[in-house]
């Protein structure tokens, strides 16, 4: 993974939550990810500090949970069965919303730093971030389908859980690195940071990482959508020209 540090942009924000004694001040190594021709994944550094007017509270230590979520789209999950001797797709469950990319990075084991009730409320862990409402009545084990979705995407590094990925210093400074894979969908990547004590969220902060195609990638993508006929003709012209060019070059070589 190549570490791209394009512009050091400090997004400073103040987050107010139920317990407003501790606020998050956040920085990102880059607020934009540019997908250019030689894009091969990117690593984003997320760092920040806890701002407080009072001394560090006693009791459970401060823990940090971060999530980065790509654009959500509905997706069909198919299951194969053997019919007439061959394996074919027989059952499908439509998952209403599944992020194209999702990473959870924490400062400790997830079930330790976050209570189940807080996970449900803020939709932090991967199964919570996916929304699947209606499975057909004929399918009894619809959870197997969402599990399969998570398994397939985890294998492609699109879903990540990194426990102990956040380093916390003196209960005040924290930092983490998130690796974005090469197969990235365009869009707004919503980044959330939660501060927890004893598994309860005490403060949260939200920002957006902008993932965009740039340069030639941008131009070709726009052309293919807005001027599809021209785009089709362009690809044919290139094909014919390349075919003719190779033929002419070989004729010259043989002479």
């Amino acid at each position, binding site marked *: 993974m190549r570490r791209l540090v394009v512009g050091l942009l400090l997004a400073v924000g103040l987050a107010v939550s139920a317990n407003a004694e501790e606020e998050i001040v956040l920085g990102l190594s880059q607020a934009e990810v540019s*997908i*250019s*021709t*030689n*894009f*091969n*994944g990117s690593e984003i550094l997320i760092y920040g500090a806890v701002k407080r007017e009072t001394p560090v509270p006693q009791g459970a230590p401060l823990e940090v949970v971060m999530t980065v979520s790509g654009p959500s*789209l*509905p*997706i*069909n*999950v*198919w*299951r*194969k069965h*053997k019919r007439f*001797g*061959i*394996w*074919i*797709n027989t059952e499908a469950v*439509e998952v209403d919303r599944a992020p194209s990319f999702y990473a959870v990075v924490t400062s400790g084991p997830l079930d330790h730093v976050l209570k189940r009730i807080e996970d449900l409320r803020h939709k932090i862990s991967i199964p919570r971030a996916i929304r699947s409402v209606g499975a057909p009545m004929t399918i009894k084990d619809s959870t*197997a*389908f969402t599990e*399969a*979705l998570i*398994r*397939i995407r985890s294998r492609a590094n699109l879903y990540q859980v990194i426990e102990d990925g956040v380093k916390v210093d003196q209960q005040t400074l924290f930092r983490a690195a998130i690796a974005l894979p*090469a*197969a*990235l*969908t*365009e869009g707004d990547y919503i980044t959330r940071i939660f501060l927890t004590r004893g598994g309860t969220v005490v403060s949260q902060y939200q920002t957006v990482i902008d993932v965009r*195609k740039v340069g*030639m*990638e*941008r131009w*070709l*993508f726009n052309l*293919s*959508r807005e001027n*599809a*006929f021209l*785009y*089709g*003709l*362009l*690809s*044919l012209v*290139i*094909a*014919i020209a*390349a*075919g*003719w*060019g*190779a*033929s002419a070059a*070989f*004729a010259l070589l043989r002479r």
Partner: protein
Amino acid sequence: MQIYLPIAEISVNAYLILGLGGLVGILSGMFGVGGGFLITPLLFFVGIPPAVAVATSTNQIVASSFSALLAHLKRRTVDFRMGWVLLIGGLIGSGLGVIVFNMLRALGQVDLLVKLCYVIFLGVIGGLMFIESLNAIRRTRKGGRATLRKKHNWIHGLPFKVRFRVSGLYISVIPPLMVGVLVGILAAIMGVGGGFIMVPAMIYLLGMPTKVVVGTSLFQIIFVTAFTTMLHATTNYTVDIVLAVLLLVGGVIGAQVGTQIGMRMKAEQLRILLAFLVLLVCGNLALDLLLQPDELFSLSPVVIK
């Protein structure tokens, strides 16, 4: 060297794609097949989304076929009259094929039917060619002359006879027209040029000489695949121009090399090699359907209606 593909939205190794293009180009020049039935599965294997792989390979076939056709034109091994007849049939078939394809998609089993189409057609054609060319080789080994395939059958009884001078044939236009329609339908459903179906059909059904078959099939393939590329680009937005350029740079060079190799080989040898290749791809696809896959689940984007 990694390159990000704007439509496929993944990053691939440029040299790998160049190599794939080159390999398929050589085959295209040797046998007069567009190579779609090879390159599409190969692109799946590299991780290109199926819809993009199918659409982009048709564009690549245009390039490699054009390059190979120019080489054949110099040797005057293209029967234009036959080519036009096949092409008219091909465009009609292609239109029909798109309608059939959309009907299958509404049923929701298009992947399976495409695969079954591949297995059945590749299996039957590959098997027949293999047996026939094996017999031909055995005959020449015995010292006897290979029997001429120009036998009189029901085809010669049909009306609308036309003289195809380059092929040395005087037959009705109905059989070539039907071959064209059939190939057009299959091309649209399977996302291939249809050369691997047309070449044997021309040799065994129409009785055309093998040397002329290759050039003539290339001539028809160029137009059918160009038509398909435009259809994919304007309706599904799945033609990846960067991927296509990488494939066709390798492909056009390979096609020139392939044509040279093809010229130095005997017709029977050429046919048995093509038969072997067709059977190999067929066997691979059949195993996919028969063996239990490692992952029973698969993902597909929801089509927004």
